[in-house]
């Protein structure tokens, strides 16, 4: 039997150091939300704590991951990309091959199971790139739950294929036209819905952000990525990699990839934020690299704010990274120095998209293209005997039309 540990990953670690009972990762995290939502968050925390220790819940989730999602996702050696970079061997953790095309489904199935456990029949979600929206709509279709997805009007424009998919899956997509019309406003609108519907509705949050227990819960559900990667590295390489690279918007794929590696201190972990068009305020989405600690969407974490505390506008061509905040656990990892956070611009991400497409026959999501681009730079600095794993968090089919538009805009001609 090949890679037994990858096919039957151990359950999430129970005795985590963080967060504490208040949802604190060191100084970061917590719960900064209206009183109306506190009871629901307490209930969710309690239900999740029970589910975590419930072998039947874990078995049901692992069965879905295996037979519905298609886990474990492969760990693939990108030989031509490795040759191009001329350094470390680059391996791709293929979350793009999951059902619905990204890592998001790992989490939505877990939270949908919790929704059933709580006896709620209606689900709301926010989405940026649309991957979490599709994954939530998919889980709701699977379980027969009502599903409403909030999505910024700008993101609806640039991620049209996912909007169509969500509708086909039976979800209602509600356009959010206030503010920047992106992910941040979709989160606000989902919280507003929940303020009035909390008795009957569960909010399935898509990233490792928001008030406790979301950052911890999303990290735990996504940790299947890191656990499998460790098992696959041991199985396929006989050892752990020197370095692991993942993109960070809210930070769920990175949290899930990094968390199981934390104890393996010899493995260097690198998170890649969206550098957009430059370092000036409003031109990037890099709160860890260029922001400061503050409050946004219910937790204390790095954020892009002005001097008054108003959330700043941010930019990334990738809708999934176009967010002014980041999960509180990443802020903690930055503070304790366990993870290195870099950022990388629109142009480099687009170039990496092209490179991976032509050399490996893989269209990466624009979000994941940031991780690929940084991995290419880092691999070149490592020895050929060393191994670098990139979390390829999603596939890029959804981005094809937007990339064609951007290329036309840049007078490069179409693909």
């Amino acid at each position, binding site marked *: 039997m090949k890679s037994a540990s990858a096919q039957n990953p151990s359950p999430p670690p129970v005795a985590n150091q963080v967060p504490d009972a208040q949802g604190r990762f060191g100084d970061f995290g917590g719960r900064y*939300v209206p*009183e109306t939502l506190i009871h629901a968050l307490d209930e969710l925390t309690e239900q999740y704590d029970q589910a975590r220790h419930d072998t039947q819940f874990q078995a049901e989730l692992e069965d879905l991951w295996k037979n519905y999602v298609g886990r474990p996702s492969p760990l693939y050696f990108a030989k031509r990309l490795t040759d191009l970079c001329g350094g470390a061997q680059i391996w791709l953790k293929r979350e793009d091959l999951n059902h619905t095309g990204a890592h998001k489904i790992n989490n939505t199935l877990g939270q949908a199971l919790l929704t059933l456990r709580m006896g709620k029949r209606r689900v709301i979600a926010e989405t940026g790139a649309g991957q979490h929206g599709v994954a939530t709509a998919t889980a709701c279709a699977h379980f027969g739950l009502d599903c409403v997805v909030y999505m910024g009007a700008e993101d609806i424009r640039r991620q049209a294929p996912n909007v169509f998919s969500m509708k086909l899956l039976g979800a209602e997509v509600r356009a959010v036209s206030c503010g920047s019309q992106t992910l941040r406003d979709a989160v606000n609108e989902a919280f507003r819905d929940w303020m009035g519907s909390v*008795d009957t509705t569960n909010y399935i949050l898509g990233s490792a952000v928001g008030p406790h227990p979301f950052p911890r819960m999303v990290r735990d559900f996504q940790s299947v990525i890191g656990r499998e990667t460790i098992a696959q590295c041991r199985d396929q390489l006989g050892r752990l990699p020197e370095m692991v690279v993942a993109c960070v918007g809210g930070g769920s794929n990175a949290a899930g990839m990094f968390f199981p590696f934390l104890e393996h201190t010899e493995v260097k972990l690198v998170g890649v934020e969206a550098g957009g068009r430059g370092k000036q305020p409003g031109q990037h989405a890099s709160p860890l690299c260029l922001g400061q600690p503050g409050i946004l969407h219910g937790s204390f974490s790095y954020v892009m704010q002005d001097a008054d505390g108003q959330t700043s506008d941010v930019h990334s061509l990738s809708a999934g990274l176009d967010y002014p905040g980041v999960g509180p656990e990443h802020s903690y990892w930055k503070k304790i120095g366990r993870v290195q956070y870099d950022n990388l611009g629109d142009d480099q991400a687009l170039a990496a998209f092209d490179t991976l497409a032509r050399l490996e026959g893989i269209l990466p999501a624009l979000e994941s293209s940031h991780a690929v681009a940084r991995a290419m730079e880092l691999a070149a600095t490592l020895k050929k005997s060393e191994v670098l794993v990139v979390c390829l968090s999603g596939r890029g089919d959804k981005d094809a039309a937007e990339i064609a538009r951007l290329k036309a805009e840049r007078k490069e001609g179409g693909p």
Partner: protein
Amino acid sequence: MNAIDDLFIQLRSEGRKALMPFITAGDPDVEFTGELLGELARRGCHLCEIGIPYSDPVADGPVIQASYTRALEGRVRLHAILDMLGKVASQVATPLVTMVSYAIVYRQGLEQYADTARQRGIAGLIVPDLPAEEASALATVCKARDLSLIHLVTPTTPRDRAVRIAEASTGFLYYVSITGITGERTELPPELLENVNWLREQTDLPICIGFGISRPEHVRQLSPVADGLIVGSALVRRIATVGKKPRDQVVREVGDYVSTLLAALAE
């Protein structure tokens, strides 16, 4: 003694109730907000709640959200708002309370925000995204400066928790009438009176009810159980007509509307 404590002691001794209008600072500019606060005081409002515009308010409905957007699009700055409130506080006796996101308070620094608020004559703070568990640091800072830190209780708050929140709150306790965001409602939930009556037995703190209140009949229905009533979106909706109507006309219309509520309160 804080000005809010004094006010409710006096109102209770006279058997009267408070009307507390909410308006957004800087909507459409700080000069208008200052002018309107003067009018609200002249009309006889007992306290005024001033919303500090915030880019990501999750507890607010479309009307108040839009007012925050208008204010921020006018590039209103926090120091300009607090300076304007300082000027108003020196001219009227009505206690002023700021409704402010913890994102803003934290960014200034807790002590810095509280010092400035105190210097500008502001009597208290409502921080809608700061639940009781997270509030101890700010509570200490406010207590040292005799600023009221007003907590909220909602229909979803379990009863043992409501008691703990009442113990932590100073000035008054804000009871949120509905499970949802701010905005006018035709009818208020039937269990509201019972919930407030229950809360009344748990605390001596004044209880003010807000969210959804807009009509004289709401005022008549709720004033027997509450110490005060908070009205927001109904005013903010009228303020949104600035630009379509002359400013002094909007000030007069908002004043007339508040007077009808004050009349219902005095019945």
